[in-house]
């Protein structure tokens, strides 16, 4: 059972306090968009073996959303960070580079 530290309240929360929110950093596509773009936004999700960026909500806690960078194989957590961002922070990316060389490929 995962243990993720909520960056909003600082609690190392076990999974039963959390609600999962799927893949992170999706860009919303609205009216006027192409069908293919909308399909990508609404339905197509990464399911990587390895480094993954996810959304979580500290539902039974401070109620806030946050992001987690995690390895889906070993479940290593590279870091959790604010939900109010469109991309992972640099320090977490560098940490992943260090731990999983070549993961960006």
């Amino acid at each position, binding site marked *: *059972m*995962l*243990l*993720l530290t909520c960056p909003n309240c600082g609690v190392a929360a*076990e999974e039963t306090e959390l*609600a999962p*929110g799927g893949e992170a950093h999706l860009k*919303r*596509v*609205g*009216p*006027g*968009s192409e*069908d293919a773009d*909308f399909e990508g936004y*609404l339905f197509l999700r990464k399911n990587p073996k390895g480094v993954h960026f996810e*959304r979580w*909500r500290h*539902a039974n806690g401070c*109620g*806030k*959303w946050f992001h987690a960078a995690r*390895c889906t194989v*070993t*479940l*290593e*957590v590279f870091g959790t960070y604010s*939900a*109010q961002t469109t991309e992972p922070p640099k320090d977490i990316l560098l940490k992943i580079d260090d*731990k999983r060389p070549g993961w960006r490929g």
Partner: protein
Amino acid sequence: MSTRLKSGGRLIDRSETLKFQWNDKWLRGHPGDTLASALLANDQTLVGRSFKYHRPRGIVASGVEEPNALVGLGKGAKFEPNQRATTAELFDGLIAESQNHWPSLEFDIGAVNALVPKLFPAGFYYKTFIHPRAFWKHVFEPVIRKAAGLGKAPKDRDADRYEHFYAFCDVLVVGGGVAGLNAALQAAKEGKRVLVLEQTPHWGGRSPVDGGTVDGKPVADWINDTVEALERMDNVRMRRRCMAAGIYDHGYVIGYERLTDHAPAKQGPRHRLWRIRAGHVVTATGAIERPLSFAGNDIPGVMLASAVRDYIVDYGVSPGDRVVVVTNNDDAYRTALAVREAGLVVPAIVDARPEANGALPQAARAAGIMVKTGTGIAKVQGGKRVTGVELCAQAGEGATLETLPCDAIAMSGGWSPVVHLWSHTGGKLTWDAERAFFAPDPSRAPVGHDGAPSVSVVGAAAGDLTLPAILDGAEAPEETPLRPVWMMPEGASADKRLKMWLDYQNDVKVSDVQLAAQEGYESVEHTKRYTTLGMATDQGKLSNINGLAVLSDALGQPIPQTGTTTFRPPYTPISMGAIAGEARGEIFQPLRRTPIHSRHEAAGAHWEPVGHWRRPYCFPKAGESHRDAVNREINATRSGVGLLDASTLGKILVKGPDAGQFMDMLYTNMMSSLKPGKCRYGLMCSENGFLMDDGVVVRLDDDTFLAHTTTGGADRIHAHMEEWLQTEWWDWKVYTANVTEQWAQIGVVGPKARAVLEKLGGMDVSAETLPFMTYAEGTLGGFDARVFRISFSGELSFEIAVPASQGLAFWDALAEAGAEFGITPYGTEALHVMRAEKGFIMIGDETDGTVIPQDLGLDWAISKKKDDYIGKRAQERSHMTDPERWKLVGLETLDGSVLPDGSYAVADGTNANGQGAVQGRVTSTYYSPTLGRGIAMGLVLHGPDRMDEEIAFNTVSGGTVKAKIVNAVFYDPEGEKQNV
């Protein structure tokens, strides 16, 4: 025969005698006994029957690995089947019974299966019961089901209580043997928070029995000193009778503590499930001795060598007067020495190795025990108990060279580290060919949330089987290598292999595994399932390694290539009660009550669960059916005035400079244009366009909206709002607050509603001051109230919110003021019928997660002026704009009957699957007392264009019933009644 020795037994208290019941017979034991040791002390060597052949079974082991001695414990509400006698502690008045036999343990009809073991080889069920197909359901399955299952399920409700406990530590040590205690001490000295779990009632593991010294003193002294030292440390917690059942991700460990199983008079929960989060886990889980595979190795009296010396040393129990020891290693010589020391006879030590010259064999010889090397067991003599043993050359085919009378056999095939917990979260194993076991590979440990190894392993569990290997300063006789023996003798004939048991509980023999290999089952996981090897309640603790060694041999490949099956939690079975914890009875799940709940209860409400809420479905009077009560409530409301507890409706505040913009995105309607003091019905869709909730939005002031949601929707919709605000539009200045429970909300509904409020007095509720779809604050009968002129019934209706703490008093005040008008409380069913009479949709009836507002003819509630709202883009997808989508209409049966709920409108022809084609379905259907007939709503192909057309709906009985397509608004289509 097995009996209690006159002396010895380090764990028992001979000064006290306990009585216990075994199959209705009263026997005696001592405090400190296990049920198994007490049964053996009473010469009860036969304790059960095997699963498939109903073979007689005796006690094999002395701990959790026991496959045979499964018994039913307790009686009535305290009965529990399949309990291991070897771990059940004896107490005065214990009641136990044997299982899996009929009519009695001594004489079991099912044992005829065993007379023809060739009839039940591996895969027997799969092969036999395939044809003819029809036989499966009517002949085979009922018979197999009757014969299946060990033990019997308890019939009574469990009388005990259970609970969970969340514990945290830096280091969790699993196992309180020497290695575990040592690891705990080291960690504790570093200042870590340490928790030590030991599954038995005793510290020290096997060492006190197996012997050895630490710094020149008996190991038992070291154990006592270390336990005392640990108990004195503030940062250490120690729990006995607490097994680590499983290790999960990120240091999560489940512990299973048995609190009163050994002391039923004790107060408190029976079991406690520990939910432990550990920074690091040390598994010191020890090792389990392996049986040897020789013909007749399942006859009662054949036991593990370690168990034999446990019973002698720990409990002062002799498993037999003449004990033959059979082994492939030095350790089993300890048993021979223990037997001899107890004053009993060891006719011979049968050692499969060509020579045995280690310190222990030498000690045995010095004690005058005959050691027969290069020898194996050809066959065990006896039926319900061992009477003798035939010896042969281990290298041969099993010709009997010699027969020794004996009444017990102590066997040892070497030891296997307990790697279960290490493996639960992905720790890898390596095969140690020299010592013939799988051991944890520390270079491939499970990792925690930080990517560092989260589990380490010490002691016998790591493969360090001797005391000096575990502890500095420890001394014990040096042991020479074992010789792997997977079959005895090596060239055993087919008839012998047919009698060599691997899995005692599930009756899997060497011959079965070999047959599986021959039939092409190469994967160990497939072989396991085909033969059921290791699938019994002991999960193969004794049989796995032997089984996969036999499989490897049959496949002609090395053991590591075959590999092990997957180790899964729990390590040994844990009670369902412990898993449930406190969640039973009244607190099985949360039940949400409105502030007026107690009044509804007193009024005899028939309840309807809505989410976790309980809402009155109706309020039947004495002798009144639910249907009659609903009709009465509707008629009273439509003709006079009704009273509805609407407190469960969600109420969410949305406030901020950007609140209007945000509401426009949330709802399909234009909400930013709503004037303060006004109400508007709104629809909310998910991003993929489907209708997810509806309700009345009120603008409280320029900055603030109050969004009403459905009863089940409050938390979900609040979370939905926060998700968009926090993760998409975080720069918008909007705050929300879920104030659902702050308010008790009561609907006063019906033509006389205004009169009731006017009687209460305090604020102007006239049509001029408070017209339909407006809102005002004021006081009513002295209560601070928010009054909404909204209607879900089509009648003149006020929904009035007062602070929840005053809800009950306000309900009473309304009931009193309304008495002269015949005010009638109504429930959810009356609410549903009245809304259906008005053609109002209900989320969850007209919608099912695939329905868009356009399907329901709600285009009027979808703003054409807005560029965007959540779900708008999705509603432009081709499938959503397809004119063939079914649309909402009203339905009236020609005969006035009520359409079956969920029934389909049949069409001509068949669909792509060859099933009858359909052209619509019923979404809501009720008897309308107002109209005196059945009414329904449904989604129908081209429905709105087919008014007055008659279509047929299927019925439960297989026929059809005709209904006419009509306008969905059955009652007061002009809306005159609600707008007064």
